């Protein structure tokens, strides 16, 4: 019998879309009974949101003051304390899941399946390696708990319409105090979230300054798009780190991705492989980005982008 525990990601009172995507991956496993664990200091609202997701049969609500900020070292022993009876434990391949899940796997004494992009069977999965230059089919042992992270860009969120029961449970586990949350420095933005936006506009090194990046924001606003960047643009300080798209940034799958002044290094392309339509604007006709772009426009971004923005009515 396949029983899967999905660890919910949430910020304060709102469930993160990565949770519904992880559930969607779990639901690809035949005859799986799916439970979702919500760790929080007060998980009432998040538990309700999760219970409304399709494919979920039970929500475990674990409230504890120590769960206010969800440190991996604090959450992992609680996951292990409720792991009994589950054949699989899934989390999203976001920084939250990447931090937590291997710690859970370590405590359980198993290797982890990182970044599931397809389910072939209850213990057989596909995952990317070498920055996405190869896809490997892996087989986890059927004798042990499968601990895995889900490559969220490979999955659509599971639909709503669920009505799972919610059980508030208390968990006996030794929680360490050796790791302490100090602060979160998060930029605030009214723009669509990069990881879930249907359209994303990204700028690269060619923007040459944070002032110039304004034209990217303006175009994005005209399109109702989220904004991303290459690593070079982040490293140069034009934009904050959370905007980085790619192997070591965010892996995204918008319907429309517009790369502006980005050369198309493999590490960047890894982050956009699943985009619906890729548009590239670059002055170098030989830039590698044109090899993957569905629509390419060769020219100077500083004249093209304002014209484009005007044309889409911004």
């Amino acid at each position, binding site marked *: 019998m396949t029983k899967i525990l999905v660890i919910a990601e949430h910020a304060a009172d709102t469930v993160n879309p990565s949770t519904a995507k992880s559930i969607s991956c779990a639901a690809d496993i035949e005859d799986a009974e799916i439970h979702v664990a919500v760790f929080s200091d007060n998980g009432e609202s998040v538990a309700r949101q999760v219970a409304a997701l399709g494919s979920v049969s039970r929500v475990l609500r674990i409230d504890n003051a120590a769960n206010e900020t969800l440190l991996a070292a604090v959450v992992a022993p609680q996951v292990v304390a409720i792991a009994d009876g589950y054949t699989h434990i899934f989390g999203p391949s976001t920084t939250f899941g*990447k931090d937590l899940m291997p*710690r859970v796997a*370590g405590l359980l004494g198993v*290797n982890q399946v*990182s970044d599931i992009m397809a389910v072939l069977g209850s213990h057989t999965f596909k995952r*990317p390696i*070498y920055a996405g230059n*190869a896809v490997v089919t892996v087989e986890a042992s059927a004798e042990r708990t499968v601990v895995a992270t889900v490559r969220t860009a490979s999955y659509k969120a599971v639909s709503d319409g669920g009505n799972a029961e919610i059980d508030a449970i208390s968990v006996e586990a030794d929680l360490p105090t050796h790791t302490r*949350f100090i602060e979160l420095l998060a930029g605030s933005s009214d723009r669509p979230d990069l990881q879930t936006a249907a359209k994303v506009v990204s700028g690269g090194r060619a923007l040459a300054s944070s002032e110039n990046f304004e034209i990217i924001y303006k175009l994005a606003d005209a399109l109702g798009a989220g904004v991303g960047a290459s690593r070079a643009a982040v490293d140069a300080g034009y934009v904050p780190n959370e905007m980085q798209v790619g192997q070591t940034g965010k892996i995204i799958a918008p319907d429309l991705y517009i790369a502006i002044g980005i050369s198309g290094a493999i590490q960047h392309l890894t982050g956009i492989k699943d985009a619906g339509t890729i548009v590239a604007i670059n002055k170098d006709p030989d830039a590698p980005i044109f090899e993957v772009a569905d629509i390419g426009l060769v020219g100077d971004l500083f004249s093209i982008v304002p014209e*484009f923005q005007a044309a889409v009515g911004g």
Partner: protein
Amino acid sequence: MDKILVGLKRVVDYNVRVRVRSDGSGVNTDGVKMSINPFDEIALEEALRIKERGEAKEVIVVSIGTPDAQQQLRTGLAMGADRAILVESDTAVDPLTGARVFRALIEREDPGLVLLGKQAIDDDNNQTGQMLAAIWNRPQATFASKIEMTGDTARVTREVDVGLEVIEVDLPAVVTTDLRLNEPRYVKLPDIMKAKKKQLDQLSINDLGVEIATPIKSVGFEPPAERQKGVIVEDVAGLVSALKDRGLL
């Protein structure tokens, strides 16, 4: 703090575009350039800076792998590490076994800090540091973009999806590095000569009494799905109409 342990994995250089063998049996790595995993180079650079600030006394680089990994360890010694340990293994080790090897070395060396990369760019697993912290029962600070040592604790800034998270960890601890932590130094020729005289110990996984974990088995390889070649439009009007055709505007 006396010692910092740094992991240096030998991997295919990040500039190499690897290809899957036509029979799907694996990835072709014959004759390609091998390097230190970029995140590990950053880990070593950070360890050296901590030592240079007088906050640690010795930097020990560790690689688990075939004897070829001596090359990467020698490069690490040339960068400035004091000593190297090669834990020999004929086959690539899985992350849990790797974590157990580090755990066994911690028993011998008693470091105040273990610095690993956030992920090895060959298998892209992103597991070893977190697993080590789990089985060592110590703090982990993953995806570090800033590390400040403050005596018995470290304050680490972590790159997370929503921005930057600052946490404080008691030492000893495991920290895994992100790319923006620092810019690794270049190795100078005289240092390469000096590095030849530095100590490089060789051990086997057996010597350390480490139990090999059950691996996740790789049963087949394939190239990623190709994207269709697209169209080049002449101007903004062409771009707008191409997007309209696709229902995106």
